[in-house]
């Protein structure tokens, strides 16, 4: 029987019902503008926003005053990188990032590259890891910012954030960390990890879309990105615009829930993903893992199914009610194999057959077992029609 199984939590998560519940009053009776706290309507909204600020701050070990509201992680990344670049231009024009970053970081850096900044894109090894020694070496007098993600969105690979932070602080360089896939999933302590700016998003952590936050450290010497959105001087002048109160309330509640359930949830999802992984590799041949199970978040699994084109796999899974995504972005607006897998040394023939399974809070064991059966059926069907599999089996017979 066809079920409905959502295994694309890396793209977005369903909203936790408790989050939606917390938000609804701020669409209805508490509709006030938090900037108008002179009256009861504005005050109620303002208090809710400040509660949410505490909730977000607590999740990452920050102080409430260090949380700046944005429209999502893409804006947070833009504000952090462009804002720092513009503000500290007189100190240097060099920015360090990595080839496997999210496009929100890569495209922002590329934009700055056209504006006279020098960008270093660190390579990664086959497991998706950067070389810390290389990071040390590329830092120069001109370097003002290092922007490296905490968890890779395609492979789940975890970067050594604390070590990166230590290097950055030692060399007097700002450290921005895109933690969109990490916040609420793995422990983050911005102080211990010496992170100066950190991006996170609501809809990746069972909260609403269209809201995110940028943590900006209040340490000395001051970290202060120049605003990229002007008009009213909200959020300490760093991000103007009337606050998205229901979204912010939702993001706060989502962070609070994550903080409560994180250890158990991470363990449960790791077990579920292991069940999926072993269920597949025990019964399907010619499957390989992109990334590394021991050095990644448990809930993201990126697998290459030889001879099965990614979009075909995804469509056939969808026919069975299972939502997954291509490791390659062939079907998105980008068209072309994943830049992440390419950077990890995978040939296009691997990137074109790679699939990301990303698990979440509401997945059950039963769903995973159904997904395993679906994968087996889909791979069999897709390989029947694939001329590449035919060639591969013929070659096998010859040897």
């Amino acid at each position, binding site marked *: 029987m066809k079920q409905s199984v959502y295994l694309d939590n890396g793209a977005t998560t369903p909203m936790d019902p408790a989050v939606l519940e917390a938000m609804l009053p701020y669409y209805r009776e508490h509709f006030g503008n938090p900037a108008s706290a002179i009256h009861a309507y504005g005050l109620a909204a303002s208090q809710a926003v400040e509660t949410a600020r505490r909730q977000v701050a607590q999740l990452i070990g920050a102080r409430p005053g260090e949380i700046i509201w944005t429209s999502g992680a893409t804006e947070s990344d833009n504000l952090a990188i462009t804002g720092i670049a513009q503000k500290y231009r007189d100190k240097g024009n060099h920015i360090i990032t990595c080839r496997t970053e999210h496009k929100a970081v890569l495209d922002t850096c590329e934009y700055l590259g056209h504006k006279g900044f020098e960008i270093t894109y660190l390579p990664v090894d086959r497991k998706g890891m950067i070389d810390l020694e290389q990071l040390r070496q590329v830092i120069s007098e001109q370097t003002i910012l290092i922007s490296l993600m905490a968890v890779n969105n395609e492979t789940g690979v975890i970067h050594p954030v604390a070590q990166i932070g230590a290097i950055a602080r030692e060399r007097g360089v700002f450290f921005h960390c895109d933690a969109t896939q990490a916040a609420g999933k793995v422990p983050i302590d911005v102080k211990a990890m010496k992170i100066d700016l950190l991006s996170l998003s609501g809809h990746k952590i069972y909260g609403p879309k269209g809201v995110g936050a940028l943590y900006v450290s209040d340490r000395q010497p001051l970290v202060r990105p120049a605003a990229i959105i002007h008009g009213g001087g909200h959020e300490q002048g760093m991000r103007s615009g009337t606050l998205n109160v229901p979204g912010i309330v939702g993001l706060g509640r989502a962070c609070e829930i994550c903080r409560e359930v994180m250890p158990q949830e991470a363990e449960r999802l790791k077990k579920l993903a292991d069940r999926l992984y072993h269920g597949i590799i025990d019964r399907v041949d010619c499957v390989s893992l992109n990334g590394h199970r021991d050095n990644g978040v448990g809930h993201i699994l990126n697998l290459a199914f030889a001879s099965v084109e990614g979009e075909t796999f995804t469509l056939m899974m969808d026919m069975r009610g299972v939502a997954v995504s291509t490791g390659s972005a062939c079907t998105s607006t980008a068209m072309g*194999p994943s830049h992440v897998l390419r950077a990890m040394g995978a040939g296009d023939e691997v990137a074109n057959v790679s699939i990301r399974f990303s698990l979440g809070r509401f997945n059950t064991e039963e769903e995973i077992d159904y997904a395993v059966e679906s994968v087996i059926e889909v791979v069999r069907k897709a390989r029947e029609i694939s001329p590449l599999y035919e060639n591969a089996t013929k070659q096998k017979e010859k040897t």
Partner: protein
Amino acid sequence: MMHYSDKVMDHFNNPRNVGSLDENDPDVGVGTFGSPECGDVMKLYIRLGENRCIIDVKFKTFGCGSAIASGSLLTEKIMGKTIDEAMAVTNGEIARELELPPVKVHCSVMAQEALKAAVADVRQKRRQNTL
């Protein structure tokens, strides 16, 4: 994810004439087009009967939904036709019928190129046999 027409999804879910024919058969032509690195490979087999008519056709595709649908639709269109009639089927015709978006038009080209290669292959075989 690309949004496909009902016709693409129909061919994708129930591709016609999937399989292969004996490549050593002198009446069978085989054509392959594309590469795994580019994410698209089509392999087309045609068997010629009397009067240069295509009496059997099979295909296999490694590629996206529209690549599979293009191969499948092509096999339907050329079955029973003479080589000349089959060669007159254009990729534009396939793209139109499947309502392929511009970024997927190359899938229909791939089907046509695989057919050209299969025809060239069987012609070559026949020429050798008549020598």
